């Protein structure tokens, strides 16, 4: 298709779509209305289960099956990224170079690292009580680890980041959902049925299985993000093709590579 034809086809499509969407939107119940039957039921149900964060109750209890699928998407995408960004036969891995980061920056980043990690854990832990949860906190915690790359260099990150270990944690978090579901099934209840005592509304242990699943997803997300970023960092920093893709340090700073000729 030439560019011209493509633009014509696109214009027709976009105009038609726009017309359809506008026509449909005009028939929608007005924005901000008070009619939300499912939402209302969900709120009542969550309070019945002593879960003060209704969104967590929906994610981990009422519609927990969705979250199992969501978690599988994350798991599958990470596995897919590992497969796609693997080191192929025509590539090799090189040692990353040390980078020199300005001292104030380094101090700040190292000081913030534990703060970020704790914030992440805090957000995970409060998932069923206040806004937050396994996904949000997991990402924050995983980001914290990468401050090492920012503050020091890639080698420092590599030292504390054992990809096999995080892969294991990723798989364990992913397995948590089906395992719990099947365990509950063994007792004769329904798959993923909330069989634990519901606890007191507003406390960290409230909500029955909600905190358990929340923790499983936190573990999986944190580990998955670390593994995911490891693939991208490896590609950008330590993997190069055999046919002389070098350009050590030519982009960005430090972390270039020590190719054969340029060992520092």
């Amino acid at each position, binding site marked *: 298709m030439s560019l011209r034809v*493509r*633009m014509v086809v*696109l214009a027709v*499509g*976009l105009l038609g*779509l*726009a017309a359809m*969407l*506008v026509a449909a*939107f*005009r028939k*929608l119940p*007005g*924005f*901000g*209305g*008070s009619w*939300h039957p*499912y*939402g209302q039921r*969900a*709120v009542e149900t*969550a*309070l019945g289960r002593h879960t*003060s*964060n*209704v*969104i967590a109750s*929906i*994610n981990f209890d009422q*519609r927990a099956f*969705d*979250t199992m699928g*969501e978690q599988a*998407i*994350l798991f599958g*995408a*990470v596995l*897919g*990224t590992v497969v*796609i*960004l693997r080191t192929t036969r025509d590539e090799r891995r090189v040692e990353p170079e040390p980078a020199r980061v300005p001292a104030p920056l380094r101090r700040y980043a190292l000081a913030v690292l534990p703060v970020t990690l704790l914030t992440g854990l805090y957000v995970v832990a*409060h998932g069923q*009580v*206040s*806004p937050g949860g396994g*996904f949000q906190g997991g990402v924050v915690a995983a980001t914290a680890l990468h401050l090492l790359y920012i503050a020091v260099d890639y080698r420092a990150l590599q030292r504390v980041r054992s990809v096999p270990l995080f892969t294991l944690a990723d798989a364990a978090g992913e397995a948590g959902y089906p395992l719990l579901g099947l365990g509950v099934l063994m007792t004769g209840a329904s798959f993923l049925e909330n069989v634990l005592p519901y606890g007191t*509304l*507003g406390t960290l242990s409230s909500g029955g299985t909600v905190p358990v699943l929340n923790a499983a997803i936190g573990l999986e997300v944190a580990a998955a993000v670390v593994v*995911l970023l490891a*693939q*991208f960092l490896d*590609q950008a920093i330590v993997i190069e*093709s055999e046919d002389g893709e070098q350009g050590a340090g030519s982009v960005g700073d430090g972390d270039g590579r020590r190719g054969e000729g340029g060992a520092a």
Partner: protein
Amino acid sequence: MSILPYLVAGWLFLAGCYGLATSRNLIHAVGSLAVCQASTYVLLLAVGYRRGGTAPVFSDIRPGSRPVVDPVVQALTLTDVVVGATLTALLLALVVQVSKRHGTVDPDELRELRG
């Protein structure tokens, strides 16, 4: 006002499609896809909003003391955000490989798989 948020959602979807179709750089195309996805967030949350409502999170308010917005769409959007982030990662991984194998990330220069 009563359909403005929906219109914004529609606009984002159309804009994202436009960006995807006219993209000259696959990384830019991935970004445009993220805009398309943003439209789904906006639509879902706009559907669940309730004027004067607050989030159904009862850590600092008493249940029943204030009207609340629809939590179901929020749970859906949460799932959607996760899907978006992972999809971005996977597509970027593929773009990286395309650049390695084709030496370009311009869709106009990818001349395989025709006919």
